[in-house]
């Protein structure tokens, strides 16, 4: 892949270009799938790891801190493999039937550390997106710093109902997060912040 093509893909990712992201997704899914399925994972793990790696690249692009010392594809595969290895290591209940090759050289140690730090974030986002539309709307407004009064005005609910709904949604989200096996493993063996 030429550097011009890579630049286009990176620009597409940061701009949220659906065509470019879909093409990248299709071109690289099989490789990631093969790796994870061969190393104790399932299709849901493939989806999680693939998307979490892309989110990580997106965030690095947004922060203008993405430094590529290899091709984008190699970097991306390195991120996916490190995310998956982290999860396997954390979840000792998973049976590792074979030694997983170490590809740490594909990405710099600082990025490996960054991947570990981001693990909790992925869990929070994943479960937030599972909430109902009304819950998401209220919580999004809350996280943007809006007051209960403002949220009630925007959503059209009474202030009392908004407070109750906000509590129910937030509690339900925390419970989902706490039940997530990745979160439980992180909680038991927290990474350095």
């Amino acid at each position, binding site marked *: 892949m030429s550097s011009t093509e890579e630049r286009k893909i990176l620009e597409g990712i940061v701009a949220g270009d*659906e065509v470019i992201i879909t093409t990248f997704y299709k071109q690289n899914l099989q490789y990631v799938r093969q790796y994870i399925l*061969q190393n104790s994972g399932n299709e849901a793990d493939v989806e999680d790891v693939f998307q979490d790696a892309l989110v990580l690249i997106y965030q690095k692009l947004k922060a203008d801190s993405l430094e590529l010392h290899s091709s984008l594809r190699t970097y991306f595969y390195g991120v996916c493999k490190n995310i998956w290895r982290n999860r396997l290591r954390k979840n000792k209940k998973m049976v590792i039937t074979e030694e997983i090759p170490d590809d740490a050289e594909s990405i710099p140690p600082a990025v490996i550390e960054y991947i570990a730090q981001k693990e*909790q974030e992925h869990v929070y986002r994943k479960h937030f997106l599972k909430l109902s539309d009304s819950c998401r709307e209220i919580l999004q407004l809350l996280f*943007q710093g809006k007051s209960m009064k403002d949220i009630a005005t925007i959503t059209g609910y009474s202030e009392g109902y908004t407070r109750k709904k906000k509590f129910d949604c*937030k509690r339900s*989200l925390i419970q989902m997060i706490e039940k997530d096996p990745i979160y439980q493993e992180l909680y038991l063996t927290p990474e350095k912040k």
Partner: protein
Amino acid sequence: MERTPEIFEKIEGYLTNTLPQEELIAFEKALATNQELQEEVEKHRMMHNVLGDQDTLDFKEKLARISTTIKEEEEEKIVTTSSFSLYWKVAASIVIVFGAGTLYWYISKSQNKTQNLYGSYYQAFPAEDNTRGNTTNEIQKVIKQYTNGVYDSVVIALENYPNLETQKRLQLYLGNSYLNLGQEKKAINQFTAISETDRYYEIGQWYLSLSYLKLNKPKKTIPILEEIIAYNGVYKAKAIKLLKELKK
């Protein structure tokens, strides 16, 4: 710690610096000695920080949508193969009605079905990351050629590669290259050479089944697929689907 609306309000007030002075002092005092409260505050802080980033949330949501679309397309591809099968059944009826070349039709139908299935199920075995430290330059070059689909160069390089039989991943690359060059019998030799005790055995069997499919030998494909299903590994689901299609 029991979660109540009051505690949530306090935590939110603390995180957004909107607690009145007296309540803030009382809250900080409780926080200093109550570990459960400390943990709860951290969960809320994380939620506010992570989920307050709307751009990343939107991006994540977009990825989920794209993933769903891709899955639907993959399903559709397999269903289309079934439709092809139905199409050929209809075509068969017409040919029989007109009484022309029944045998020729049967062979043609069978070949088309197996070829369609092969097209639907075959995906080249993915190449391992070529930046691995212990990979020689020669192998890195081969992997690059394989990834870029320059299969004839891969064949030239690997046919003369010393001790190839000890490197099953390379054998899989060679077998896949043969398959892509229309040299199915040579591909079969490579896939058959991967023994049952090897970690790549199931992968070898999967590509072996596809090689026979490409050669329009479903009777040879079927028992291999049954063995893959019994093996109960990562190719089981695909093998079940393909077997079902073949037996239609």
